[in-house]
């Protein structure tokens, strides 16, 4: 299981602030694609990804038990 935390506008699009997915050993890229397909997020490509509070790159592997934060660009101030 992977816990996925959504922030800002992604919460509205998904209707929740967190998603649990029954996955393991997927790349960040693959997870993004899967989320995109399931939830139709508009800005997943522009979002930063953090796995266990560490900045992640597209080829990084996400393991079961990891917590993933999807961080869309937020502009308000």
């Amino acid at each position, binding site marked *: 299981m992977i816990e996925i935390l959504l922030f*800002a506008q992604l*919460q509205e699009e998904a209707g929740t602030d967190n998603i649990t997915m029954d996955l393991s050993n997927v790349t960040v890229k693959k997870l993004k694609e899967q989320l995109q397909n399931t939830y139709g997020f508009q800005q997943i*490509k522009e979002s930063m990804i953090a796995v266990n509070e560490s900045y992640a790159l597209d080829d990084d592997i996400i393991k079961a038990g990891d917590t993933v934060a999807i961080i869309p660009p937020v*502009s*308000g101030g």
Partner: protein
Amino acid sequence: MSGMNRYHRQTLFAPIGQEGQAKLASKHVLMVGCGALGSSAAEMLTRAGVGELTLLDRDYVELTNLQRQHLFTEADVENKTPKAVAAASKLTAINSETKINPVVIDATADTMVNYVKQVDLIIDATDNFDTRFIINDLANKHQVPWIFGACVGSSGMTFSIIPGQTPCLDCLLKVTPVFGATCDAVGVIGPAVQMVVTHQTTEAIKILIEADQKIRTQLILFDLWHNHYQQIDVSRSKQENCKSCGNTPTYPTLSYNNRTKSEVLCGRETVQIRGQQYPLESLHTKLSRFGEVKANPFLVSVVIDTKRLVFFHDGRVFVHGTNSIEDAKKIYYQVVG
């Protein structure tokens, strides 16, 4: 307890002390934007005894600001007082020892550069990524630390960018243009603003008193409504070939061709903005938050209140219904962030 000075409780805090207080008094901070983040950060730094603060903002106080923008009152709304001016008068009443320079101006590469050269720190209190990328280039070029901050809804993030040490905004976001969520689109609560400001001003004080060992190296990401708080190590994002902080920087936003340029189209009550090139499809979805969207293969348009915005493929935007570049840019950034 007579004879105690106004900073007594702060100098009693051992990591600051009298020495740190003296350093604060000798420093100059540039606040880019004086809305929600800017007005609160300015208040906190003024109360803390920073020597000099320059506040840049092109906007005036409106009724919808009062829900989250500290320092401003109903009288400022009635008088349509410029935010930088309204803030300065409140700040001077709070601490006459801090020198406040209010500047009512559109923050561009041209208008910011001379300030950037004079200050010890820049605080990002703007509401759009165009300006943030300019700050990033100016800060890297002139080796001035700056503190990124942004929020919408109940979420926000902040990160201190120290040239030569940390990743920069280009390293973090990689893609441009960035189409950021704005408070005009998804709303914002006051505490989300204060959460960003609290972290920005803490790090500002550390940077200004040169407590280098204590400066937070992680990006803070939070959601107060859903009770999330993350301290993200972003060191891996730093890129040697970054166009802004890499080995051979080009500072893309500072080159003439890449700047957002605006002009009034005479006699048409229209302002033309040359901005980032957003894909028309994604614009369509975004704009639908603000009003009815019309589109054809060449353009996308939306009517917001009394103005009509028309976006073209090449990045040009017409804002119909105004002759004011300030008004046009304001509504433009409310939409694209």
